[in-house]
């Protein structure tokens, strides 16, 4: 329990997530922030599978799972239906990075363009974990996954991660934020804000996956914290199109510390680690510039 957060649980214990699952920590605290007056729409993926084994459910909120790629569209229907009924509930849409960055991107883009009032939360664990750790558009460069294995010729995934929060912000979404399961009070207040602000809001939560990343189940929060402290996972919010860094990392740790903590990066060469460091430095500079110059996303 983190002091200051509501004690009531809406994501009950007894679900079947792995010990140390970052996503389960995220679910627990996101639902605490959302509270009782909330309808949950969840995409197919680890969290859906572990939380709804019929006839059990971990959800103490009204909950619907439809398919993998259509949560934003289901939420659109719910939102308009509630409007005609004159009811106002939080609509909390939950998807993994595969559901969000890849297969459900069109549906999400369309729903944001239409301006539905919901909060979409992407649980970013950087791969399709539910189907056995396959590469997604959110998988970091050089990470080993089962479909981008670190081979003798090709060293894991070859592409950088899709900059989804910026893409969503460019849709004129009123509120976009990144968060991490290592910073629960920050995550909590960002979820609250995303639900309070009218219109389609987006929060991307960085959350380690024990088998997917090859980490010790006791280390998931620690690894998530390293991602923040190395600037791998910059924490910011974009409100009204203007970016603000919510946790400045003045003296970053080298990315190597983060990479070395995970089996999915164990094949990396010095050059590759340097390349990642240079990329992370570049991205941080860019984000800083966006903040300092008050650049508008729209």
């Amino acid at each position: 329990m983190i002091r200051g957060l509501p004690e009531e649980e809406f994501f009950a214990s007894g679900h079947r997530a792995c010990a140390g699952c970052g996503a389960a920590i995220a679910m627990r605290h996101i639902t605490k922030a959302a509270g009782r007056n909330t309808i949950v729409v969840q995409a197919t993926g680890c969290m859906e599978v572990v939380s709804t084994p019929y006839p059990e459910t971990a959800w103490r909120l009204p909950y619907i799972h439809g398919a993998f790629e259509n949560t934003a569209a289901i939420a659109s229907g719910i939102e308009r239906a509630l409007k005609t009924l004159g009811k106002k509930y939080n609509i909390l849409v939950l998807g993994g990075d595969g559901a969000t960055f890849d297969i459900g991107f069109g549906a999400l883009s369309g729903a944001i363009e239409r301006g539905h009032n919901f909060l979409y939360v992407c649980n970013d664990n950087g791969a399709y974990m539910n189907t056995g750790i396959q590469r997604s558009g959110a998988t970091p460069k050089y990470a080993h996954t089962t479909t981008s294995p670190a081979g003798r010729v090709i060293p894991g995934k070859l592409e950088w991660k899709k900059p989804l929060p910026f893409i969503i912000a460019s849709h004129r979404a009123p509120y976009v934020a990144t968060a991490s399961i290592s910073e629960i009070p920050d995550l909590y207040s960002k979820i609250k804000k995303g639900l309070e602000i009218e219109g389609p809001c987006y929060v991307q939560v960085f959350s380690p996956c024990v088998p997917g990343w090859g980490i010790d189940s006791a280390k998931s929060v620690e690894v998530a914290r390293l991602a923040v402290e190395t600037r791998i996972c910059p924490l910011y919010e974009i409100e009204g199109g203007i970016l603000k860094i919510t946790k400045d990392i003045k003296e970053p740790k080298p990315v190597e510390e983060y990479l070395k903590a995970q089996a999915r990066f164990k094949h990396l060469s010095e050059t590759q680690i340097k390349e990642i460091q240079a990329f992370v430095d570049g991205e941080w500079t860019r984000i800083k510039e966006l903040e300092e110059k008050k650049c508008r996303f729209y």
Partner: protein
Amino acid sequence: MPEIVVEASRAMALGVKLCKPKVIPMYPITPQTHIVEALAEMINNGELQAEMIHVESEHSACSALLGAQAAGVRTFSATSSQGLALMYEILPIISGNRMPCVMAVANRALSAPISIWNDHSDAVSARDQGWIQLWVESTQEAIDTTIQLYKICEDHSVLLPGMLCLDGFTLSHVYERAIVPEQEQVDAFLPEYKPYIKLDPEKPITMGPIAFPNSFMEFKKMQHEAMLQALKVIKNVHDEFAKQFGRAYGDGLLELYRMEDAEYALMGMGTLVGTARVVVDKLREEGQKVGLIKLRSLRPFPKGELINATKNLQGLTVIDRHISLGYEGPLFSDVRSALFESDIRINNFIAGLGGRDITQKHLRKALLSLKERREGGWLL
């Protein structure tokens, strides 16, 4: 009750309006577009209190349909061909969640080669996904069946989604005379929508869980039983409609035409039945004992009613506007399996694919084929 001359698509929209759906997700595709365009006009002119969601794909249209219905309101959507194909993934999710959504399908061929014209390949290919499918012949039947379909699907002993199938262009774009019921009449027939379950923070439930092998089959068995129950409900709702509105379509499942002493009969769905009526009349004038069976409900399939309707026949010719490539017409397969234990001769013609006209000459040839000891085949 005003009688008007109206395009079937607009008539459909008028029928939908009378049922007062609250959310209408839609995505354009020919030949379904006139239905949703008419609804958009009604909404924007303040004649229909509903929300239209201009989704970015049919996949999302179907998903929004699910979401809105799950939130507790009556819904409507319409599509055709590629659009229905794109919805395919969500069709069994809607039926598996027992959501009584209603959708019109203006039937059109599936690509490739791309064709915007009518056949039945889109909806027939989706027939196993737990949606009631009612097929209509005329503008009037499209209006009347839409009103019936909401009542059938929402019946708490059914709780299944329904497709209203109307032939693209040959019906959707045709102007006919039709009676549009009054709102009070429809209100008296179709009660306000009362969801059996809904997403409600006061009473939280989990919809769409994962089922393991120890429970999945029970879900499917219950859906199947609801489908079989729908056979009764379709009939009852149809009879109630007939009593109140004065219009009937056989028993709601099958419509028989000049079958009293018929020895040979044609069977089919949709607008080809209209042409077949004329062919039957002409052959009757020539002294041939022929009749016609129109199938209204493809799913659930009225097996008992069909056995009954055909028991005095010598031959039955089934016209399919679709082919299960590598086998035969799917309607024919259904009919032959239903009549397996009877000794009627049955044959099959494939006709009207991709908008090819089905002429009186075609149907005459087909209807006389069994009497003249000819085999079925393609009506090219």
